[in-house]
């Protein structure tokens, strides 16, 4: 990898940040480039990209906007594989001409360029073109969710949330002004990427007819595609002479067309994280008949409300199942537990009670998903319960989703689930959103 535009005097220059982190932390060979040459941290600075003695796969370009087209041209001549253009100062500041020039140089040579005005690529443990000092970043674990974002800031924020909720990343790409590589190109790439199971996008808008191409491509994709869209509010009141044009506003069209093609729309960033976490574990579509297991009646009631908001049903279990459940509970809670659904095992329940009910619900066809609301402060619950319940899922393969308050004290319980591929939400609403994700994703 070459980093073009490193400073010999300013260690905080974006190019230097990128050079340093890759040089010190990642398994890539990285070469600094600056026309003045010289030495940077005891390494040779190459005056020109063509001077580098090895073949270059990726050039990260962080020079002034006016110089970018020439640098791209030099990369093409030097047989570089592709480029990420970090530099700003293009269409976003009125220099569409400069951006078009760069794109046409790259386009003619079929030379892939990400950006300009972007952070570029973050591939966990592999390569990282983000100009953010590594010690400041919250880095998600390697995993199977890929995220593509027009906005670098939103992407970094989402990564922070992914890390917080144990969602692993296969790749994160900030595409900035998307002069050449656009959402649809990355969709095509990620569809084929064996490391990626879920593809998430943050989109501000598409170009003319680009949305049509995108949904038609997504329709061919067997992996879940999730989109978070901004700019949902109508742009003021325009004089519209037709009812259809006024009723079918930009966002209404966007939202309805996504659902037509089984693209999952996340309404906000919380939904995005919940959907990614859920679909990274489960990809079998469900109807949405949920069995809820809880140690607190209040939690059960809140979960039922949330299900109702999403049109998810919480069916009353048959007498037979209810009897079976009651018969398997510890004698101390047999007479006080409620077993209709939600199943409230009360604050006196122990690990085994949760586990046995989870097993029964996993085996009955009356429900297609189990939501476990766990209160780790109850005396009968231990830190082992997460791993124990994950085993129940491993046997029956019926989707299991847990709610556990996310504080450090309970992390072993949480990891017992997450490390065994059972998603955990820090909120009740989030757990129900995970059910919603499975219901919405209906692969053709």
């Amino acid at each position, binding site marked *: 990898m070459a980093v073009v535009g490193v400073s010999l005097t300013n260690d905080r220059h974006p190019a230097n940040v990128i050079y340093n982190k890759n040089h010190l932390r990642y398994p890539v060979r990285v070469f600094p480039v600056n026309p003045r040459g010289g030495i940077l941290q005891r390494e040779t600075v190459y005056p020109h990209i063509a001077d580098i003695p090895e073949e270059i796969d990726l050039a990260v370009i962080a020079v002034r906007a006016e110089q970018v087209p020439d640098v791209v041209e030099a990369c093409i001549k030097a047989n570089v594989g592709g480029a990420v253009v970090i530099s700003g100062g293009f269409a976003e500041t009125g220099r569409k001409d400069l951006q078009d020039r760069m794109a046409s140089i790259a386009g003619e040579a079929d030379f892939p360029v990400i950006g300009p005005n972007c952070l570029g690529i973050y591939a966990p443990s592999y390569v990282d073109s983000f100009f953010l000092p590594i010690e400041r970043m919250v880095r998600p674990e390697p995993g199977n969710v890929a995220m593509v974002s027009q906005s670098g800031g939103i992407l970094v924020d989402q990564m922070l949330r992914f890390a917080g909720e144990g969602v692993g990343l296969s790749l994160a790409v900030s595409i900035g002004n998307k002069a050449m590589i656009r959402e649809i190109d990355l969709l095509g790439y990620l569809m084929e990427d064996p490391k990626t199971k879920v593809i998430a996008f943050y989109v501000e808008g598409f170009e*003319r007819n680009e949305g049509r191409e995108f949904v038609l491509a997504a329709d061919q994709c067997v992996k879940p595609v999730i989109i978070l869209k901004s700019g949902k509010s109508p742009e003021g009141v325009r004089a519209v002479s037709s009812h259809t044009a006024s009723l079918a506003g930009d966002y*209404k069209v966007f939202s309805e067309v996504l659902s037509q093609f089984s693209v999952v729309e996340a309404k906000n960033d919380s939904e995005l994280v919940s959907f990614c976490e859920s679909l990274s574990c489960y990809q079998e579509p469900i109807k949405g008949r949920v069995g809820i297991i809880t140690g607190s009646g209040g939690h059960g009631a809140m979960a039922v409300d949330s299900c109702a908001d999403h049109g998810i049903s919480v069916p009353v279990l048959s007498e037979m199942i209810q009897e079976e459940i009651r018969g398997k509970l510890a004698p101390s809670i047999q007479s006080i537990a409620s077993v209709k659904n939600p199943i409230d095992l009360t604050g006196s329940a122990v690990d085994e009670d949760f586990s046995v009910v989870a097993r029964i619900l996993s085996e009955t066809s009356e429900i297609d998903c189990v939501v476990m609301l766990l209160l780790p402060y109850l005396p009968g619950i231990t830190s082992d319960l997460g791993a124990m319940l994950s085993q129940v899922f491993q046997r029956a393969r019926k989707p299991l989703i847990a709610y556990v308050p996310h504080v450090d004290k309970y992390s072993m319980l949480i990891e017992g689930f997450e490390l065994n591929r059972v998603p955990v939400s820090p909120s009740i609403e989030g757990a129900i959103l995970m059910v919603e994700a499975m219901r919405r994703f209906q692969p053709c």
Partner: protein
Amino acid sequence: MLKTEIREILLPSRELGWVLEPEAKRLLGLAGLETTRFRWAHQLEEALQFAEEIGYPVVAKVVSPEALHKSDVDGVAVGIADDKTLSTVFERYSAIKGFSGVLVEEMASGTELIVGAKIDYQFGPVVLLGIGGTGVEIYQDTTLRMAPLNRQDVDYMINGLKAGQLLKGYRGSEPVNLQALGSLIMTFSALVMEIENWIESIDLNPVMCNAKRCVVADARIMVRDSFA
């Protein structure tokens, strides 16, 4: 290939920006959509003769290139029961700016729906179904899909309306002919795909649906001024 007759209707409408209603209805007829029976009468005698032919009551609407919104110029009269009323209405319309005749039509009855299309910037042609009539923008009860549609899309659109129950028969009311509605939407979708480069949007509002048939009672086709 665009039918020559459809092209011949759209081409001269480009300067005006929209298609006069009688021409819009003729276009829909050419595309295989059922509209209310109508005559574009330039003389009173012609109007009276057609009213007699189809039988009262009839609807009379003003035709004028300056009246895109006919009700704004009081240019729509429904339930006209006899020659005398029709004559009075005809005379009144003659004074409306840009007067180019009167559209005399049969009265259709049923549930009022809107079937529309727009060429969306990001997604191209989309088709919309909703509860129609003059309250269309108040209820905002609509569903839409990207065209061209298949039968599942059409079923989804009908079932997705909040007032979908009304169409299927609610509390003893007669259900509308969903078969006919489905065919109408499919035919409309095919038309929209055919003329997508010519139009900005189309409102079929209202489409009158009852147990027997679904028929387009009013149509507004907004034409693109040039090819981008």
